[in-house]
């Protein structure tokens, strides 16, 4: 190998290192496209157990930001409810069919979607009627909010189980696992 070729090779190697050094910081660029602050889970107080009675519910937005425009987004709407037999549950309010917002019919213990009539069970959020129930597993259940209940009975939302607007893998996971007493 002549001296010139050797020199050229060294220069080429240096050049590639330089190109890599310039490009490397951009490797995380993809993160720009996801609004991470929107998907991060936070610990947020919702209500106190003592304020709930069977069949009562509260709507809340999670994760709360304080910006009414963001907090009002359908994708951040949840419902905390106490089932008729006293269990605490919190579900996403986005129907897994076409994203309308179901309401809670406490007398029947069902969540009912106003748009095409999907009906979900209060105890596990699984669709039992309407178009959502026709969707294959796991696209037939409302996502759940993971809850923590502390000694004072304060209920905190700490995360999401499932994918909003899509569904939740509920077969091998009891809904009770999403309600932890600490």
């Amino acid at each position: 190998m002549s001296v010139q070729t050797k020199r050229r090779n060294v220069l080429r190697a240096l050049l590639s290192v330089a190109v890599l050094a310039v490009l490397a910081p951009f490797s995380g660029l993809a993160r720009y496209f996801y609004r991470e602050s929107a998907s991060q889970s936070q610990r947020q107080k919702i209500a106190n157990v003592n304020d709930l009675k069977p069949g009562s519910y509260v709507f809340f937005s999670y994760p709360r930001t304080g910006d009414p425009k963001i907090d009002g987004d359908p994708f951040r709407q949840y419902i905390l409810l106490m089932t008729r037999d006293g269990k605490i549950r919190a579900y996403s309010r986005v129907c897994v069919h076409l994203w309308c917002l179901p309401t809670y019919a406490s007398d029947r213990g069902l969540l009912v979607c106003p748009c095409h009539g999907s009906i979900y069970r209060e105890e596990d959020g699984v669709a039992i009627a309407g178009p959502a129930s026709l969707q294959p597993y796991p696209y037939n259940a409302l996502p759940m909010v993971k809850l923590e209940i502390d000694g004072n009975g304060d209920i905190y939302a700490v995360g999401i189980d499932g994918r909003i607007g899509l569904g939740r893998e509920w077969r091998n996971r009891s809904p009770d696992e999403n309600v932890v007493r600490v």
Partner: protein
Amino acid sequence: MSKEYRTFREAIDALIKWTVERLERTPFAAFKFTFPKQYISPFGYLGTLTAIVFLILGVSGAILMFYYTPSIDTAFASVREIQESVPFGFVMRQIHYHASNFMVLLAVFHLYYQYFSGRYKIKNEVLWVTGIILGILTVLEAYTGYNLILNQRAMLAINIGMGLTFSAPVLGPSIAPILMGGGYFDLIVRFYALHVFIIPLLLLLLLTVHIPRALIIDMPMILGVIGAIFVTAGMFPAELGLRFDPTKGSVEVPEWYLTSIYAFLRTGSERFWAGALLPLLFAIFFLIVPFVDKSKKLSWRDRPFFAAMGIASILMIIVTTVWGFYVDFSKLTVFEQLYVEPVIYYSSFGIITLISFFFTYRYLTKPRGRPTPAKPLVLSPRAGTAGVVITLLLVVAFSWLAVLTYLENMPNISMFNMGMSMIMLGLMLHIYRHTASAAAKT
């Protein structure tokens, strides 16, 4: 000025010459603009018409941007302002809306004409593939556009589209959040960015690869198409719809170029495989066809398999679209009205597609006896008679429809009249051109 011109005309000519000589140093020199002296076939011209409608969309869309605000709480109100109180806002929105429909329609016609005449051969593979990508981008552009209104119908389309993206295998879960961001408030801004900048930019870039260097400007035809946009806007003005409200249900059917996908979803089958697989197969088929169909034959008659595929695909589009529009109002609940029985749906669609394929194939491969002697190349004076008669019948049918709507209560007379006057001007230009060239011959 160093030189003196005797007449105004001389001065103008000199100015034009001066400009043209300077433009020769720019990329403009690559294009050759011709104004045809005679009637040219509209079929071969469909591509240019699509591009011209795209320009109209660019202009009208840019003007709409002055009033439109891409925000979850003001988007609908701003469109309503454009539609109801801004002077000429109604006209602008109608032009934009109907031109988008025309663009999709013209692009589809263009695709099929080129497909059946085998234009993807003879070194046109790159043109063909860019054309397919342009077509896909056109639909995406139209899709992102009509979602910006944020009415019930737009939300339905957003939900369908996002649901499909989310459920796409492998890439879906990581692509969908890019479009969604943190929720609807992000989605609307991102769709806006895609609609007014990113996709049009891609379209323009691809267009530079796709358009021929010899550009034909056929004014009568162009005026005819623009006029037709106005006339349709006059007869069927786009409405505002209802503001999106996730707590209320309504029976909505999405834009016509999406109803075929919608039909699949309404059968309740698994989202991605039902809703996205077929369009995907479509796109892939058209993308690879130039590399599969290697015969030297151009005419569809000599390519029975591909002609049959083409016919079958058209029928498939028609059947699924019709199903998509089908709403059974005799049923009580919204869900039942929209539900499509999968067995009936899939069998009707499968049978019609198969039958049309089979019959076209049989028809084209049937031995045709003695080959008919080649026709002499001289066109007889009656060569175009059938075409003229059909055109006239269509014109009569259309005017009849127009008169009926007119009598009932024309929703938007002024745009109808504007369109009609454009068509008339186009017709006059054509007659003028025709007589001028006839006079030049004698």
